[in-house]
C-alpha cells in the first residue's frame, strides 16, 4: 500500500508486516538533511498532486512485487513543511530471503523519486538566497 500523509509518519515505524513465511524485513527512512549542493538547508516544503501520486505509488509497489521475490511492500510519503531530521519517506519490504528485500526497497525509492508527482522546495539558512524548487538533475529531462 502507498500512502501520503500531511502529519508526522514516525508512528509507521511501529507497524509490523511480519507473517510466518517472512524471513527478512528491509526498511528505509528518508529524512530531511541540513545541506544540499553546498548550501545550508533550513527546511523543506513538500507539495503533492495527491490523486495521481497515490495511483503512481500503487503502480510502483505492484511493479516491485512482480519484479522481485518479496511478500509485501509498503511506502508512506510525508508532505507539508518539514524541518531538519524529519522523516519524509518510509518504506518497508518483507520477503522470504534478504536479497530481494534489499533490492526491492532500493527500487521503490528510486522509482518514487522518478515518477510520483511530489515536489520539494528548499529554504536556505542564508536568507539572501531565494528558496527554490529542486529536483534530481539527471532525471528531470524527458
Amino acid at each position, binding site marked *: 500500500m502507498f500512502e501520503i500523509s500531511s502529519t508526522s509518519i514516525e508512528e509507521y515505524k511501529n507497524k509490523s508486516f511480519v507473517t510466518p513465511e517472512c524471513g527478512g524485513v528491509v526498511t528505509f527512512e*528518508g529524512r530531511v538533511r541540513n545541506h544540499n549542493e553546498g548550501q545550508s538547508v533550513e527546511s523543506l516544503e*513538500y*507539495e503533492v*498532486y495527491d*490523486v*495521481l501520486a497515490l*495511483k*503512481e505509488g500503487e503502480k510502483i509497489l505492484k511493479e516491485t512485487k512482480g519484479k522481485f521475490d518479496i511478500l509485501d511492500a509498503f511506502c508512506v*510519503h510525508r508532505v507539508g513543511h518539514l524541518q531538519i531530521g524529519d522523516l*519524509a*519517506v518510509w518504506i518497508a519490504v518483507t520477503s522470504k530471503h534478504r536479497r530481494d528485500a534489499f533490492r526491492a526497497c532500493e527500487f521503490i*525509492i528510486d522509482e*518514487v*523519486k*522518478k*515518477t*510520483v*508527482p*511530489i*515536489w*520539494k*522546495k528548499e529554504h536556505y539558512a542564508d536568507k539572501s538566497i531565494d528558496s527554490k*524548487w*529542486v*529536483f*534530481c538533475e539527471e*532525471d*528531470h*529531462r*524527458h
Partner: protein
Amino acid sequence: MKINIKYFASLREQANKSEEIIETTYAKPSEIYNELKKKYNFSLELNELKVAVNDCYEDFNYEMKEMDTLVYIPPVAGG
C-alpha cells in the same frame, strides 16, 4: 472549449493560482502549454514537463475534451 487546469509547485507560484478554467481554441496539451507559458511567463520548457489529463499521465498530443482536467507536471522530487 473550456479546460480545467491545476497548477503545482513552480507553475502554481508563477501563475499565482492553483486552479482555473480557461477557454482555448487549442486541443493538445502542448499547444495549450505554449499559450499559458506566454500568459504567465512560465520558466519551464515543455521538454521539462510531463502532462496528466483527468488524473492519468498522457502524452502532449492527447486530444482534450470539454472540461477535461489538465495538469502540467514539473520535474518531480519525492524522497
